[in-house]
C-alpha cells in the first residue's frame, strides 16, 4: 500500500559531483519498499516548480528512506538546498520493482542507474542469493564513491562486488558496461537467470539487444516524464511492442525488455 506523508529530512549530503544522498524519515514507505520501486517527491511546497519528481528508492535503513540523486535542473537544484529538519512531501512506494527471484541474476547499472540497483544488490545479499554486478560510468570522476574503491573497481557502497567499466578507462575496465556483460553472457554453462538493468537509454537498448541475442530474460528500469506517479495522468507513456503504451509508473518503471518498443522510445 502506497502512502503520502511529509517526511523529515534527516540528512542531505553531497557524495559526488552534483550527486547527493538524501535521507528521509518515512517509515511507512521504507517498510513497504522493494528494489526498483520509486517515490514521488515535492522539492518545494510552492506552486513553482509545480510537479513532484520521481526518484528511485536507493535503500532503506530502519524507517529511513535513502535517495541518491543528481542535480539536473531546477527541481533537483532546490532539493540540494533542503536542510535537515525541513519537511518534504513524498508518496510511494510506487510502481513495479525488479523481480529478484531469478537464478544468479546480473545487475547492470549505468551512471545514476546505480540508485535502484544498489538496493537490489542489498536485498539479494541479505537473502544470500548469488549475483553478478556491473557498473558503468563515464569516468572515475563521475562518482566520488569510486574514490573508496579498490584499484580493480571491485568495491562499491559497502562490499558488494561490482565490476566496473568506465568510458575513459579511469576505473575498472576501459569501455562500456555492456562489454563485461557480453563476456559474462558468453561464458558457457552459467548464464544469468535474468539481467536487471537501469541506466541511460542507449545503455538499456544495448543491454536489451544483448539479452535478446543470448535469450536471457531482461528487466529494464525506464524513465519518462511523470506528473502523478500513480497511474492516473497517463503522462509517462512508454511505447509497447503491441502498439499502444505502457505507463512507466504503473506497468513500470521496471519492464520486461521484450514488452518495450525500443525503436519508438
Amino acid at each position, binding site marked *: 500500500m502506497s502512502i*503520502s506523508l511529509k517526511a523529515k529530512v534527516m540528512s542531505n549530503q553531497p557524495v559526488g559531483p552534483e550527486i547527493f544522498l538524501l535521507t528521509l524519515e518515512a517509515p511507512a514507505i521504507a517498510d513497504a519498499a522493494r528494489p526498483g520501486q520509486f517515490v514521488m517527491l*515535492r522539492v518545494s511546497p510552492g506552486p513553482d516548480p509545480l510537479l513532484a519528481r520521481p526518484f528511485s528508492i536507493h535503500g532503506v535503513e530502519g524507517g529511513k528512506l535513502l535517495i541518491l540523486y543528481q542535480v539536473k535542473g531546477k527541481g533537483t537544484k532546490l532539493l540540494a538546498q533542503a536542510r535537515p529538519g525541513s519537511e518534504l512531501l513524498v*508518496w510511494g512506494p510506487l510502481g513495479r520493482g525488479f523481480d529478484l527471484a531469478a537464478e544468479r541474476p546480473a545487475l547492470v547499472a549505468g551512471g545514476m542507474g546505480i540508485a535502484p540497483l544498489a538496493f537490489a544488490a542489498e536485498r539479494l545479499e541479505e537473502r544470500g542469493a548469488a549475483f553478478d554486478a556491473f557498473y558503468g560510468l563515464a569516468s572515475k570522476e563521475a562518482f566520488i564513491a569510486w574514490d573508496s574503491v579498490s584499484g580493480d573497481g571491485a568495491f562499491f557502497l559497502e562490499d558488494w562486488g561490482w565490476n566496473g567499466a568506465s568510458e575513459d578507462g579511469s576505473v575498472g575496465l576501459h569501455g562500456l558496461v555492456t562489454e563485461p556483460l557480453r563476456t559474462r553472457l558468453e561464458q558457457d554453462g552459467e548464464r544469468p537467470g535474468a539481467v536487471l538493468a537501469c541506466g541511460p537509454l542507449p545503455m538499456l537498448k544495448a543491454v536489451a539487444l544483448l539479452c535478446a541475442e543470448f535469450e536471457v530474460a531482461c528487466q529494464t528500469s525506464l524513465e519518462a516524464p511523470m*506528473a502523478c506517479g500513480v*497511474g492516473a495522468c*497517463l503522462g509517462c*507513456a512508454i511505447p509497447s511492442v503491441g502498439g499502444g503504451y505502457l505507463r512507466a509508473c504503473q506497468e513500470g518503471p521496471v519492464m520486461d525488455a521484450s514488452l518495450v518498443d525500443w525503436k519508438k522510445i
Partner: protein
Amino acid sequence: MSPAANMAVFVGGVRLANPVLAASGTFGYGREYSPYLEPGAIGGLVTKGVSLEPRVGNPPPRIVETACGMLNAIGLANVGLEEFLAHKLPWLSEQPGAVVVNLYGESVAEFAELARRLGAEPGVDALELNVSCPNVKEGGMAFGCHPGAVGEVTAAAVAEAQGKPVWVKLTPNVTDLAPMALAAAQAGAQAVSLINTLLAMAIDPKTRRPKLANVVGGLSGPAIKPVGLRMVWQVAGALKAEHPGVDVVGLGGIMSGTDAAEYLIAGAKAVQVGTASFTDPTAAGRIAAELAAYCAGQEVSAAELAGSLRI
C-alpha cells in the same frame, strides 16, 4: 472554533456531500487515488474521458512542466467503453460520492451512443460531455467553439441519457464562453463545467523542437486560475440571467480550500480539483477539508457561498 458548515450541495442534478470533485483526466478511474483519500472525503469524481473504442493516445513526451503550470497532450487515451463498464465502473459504484462520467465522441452520434449506454448504468450519477479537448484532431475542441455545435451535441446526449443529468465541459479557448454555456443550457444540460485547459506550447531552446510530441498541449494548474475564475464569473452571470436552473462547476488551478472558495464566490456551485492531485495525491480530500474550515470560519454553507461575490 466555529460550528461545522453545511457543505452539501445540489449541483447539475446531483446531490454532493461536499462541493469538491476530482477533475477528469487527473484522477484516473478513482482507484488510483484510493490509497490517499479517506472514503467520502470528496463529493465525487469525474472519470477520465471515456470513448466508444479504446484509445492509445498521443506519442510521448505527453507532459511538460511550465511556470506554475503544466502542459499535457495525452490525446484522450482511455480504456474504452466496454472495459470501463466491465472493470472500472463496478468498483466506482461501490464508493461513496458521486460518479460523473466524462465522455468523448468524434461525432454527435458517438456522443449520443455513449450517453445512451452510460445513461443506463445505475452507478453513474451524471455525464460530462467533453467538447473541449485541445489535444485531439477530430471532435474535441472543434465542438466546443461554436454554440450551434455545443447545442447539437448536448441535445443528442440529453435525448439518450434516460434522464441522467448531462453536464457540458467547456473550453476556455474561445472569444466568449457565455454563448456556449447558454447553448448547452438551452439544449438541456444541467450544468456546465469550466474550464478545460488553455491551448499552449513549449519549446526546448537547446534542440529547437517542441517539448511535446503533439507540438501543442493544454495548460493547467495555478497559472490558469485567474482565467478560470473570470470565465466562471462571466458564465455564471449569463446563466443566472437566462437559465437560472443551470449550474456552473468551476475548475482551473485550484490548489487549496481558499482557491475553491474563490470559485464558489465567483458563481460556481461545485468545483473540480485537477492538476493539484498530481502535486499531492491527497489534494482533493485536503481541499474539501480546507473549504469546510473556510465555510465554518465565514459562517456560511457551501450553497450560500456560491455566487456571493460582492462588487
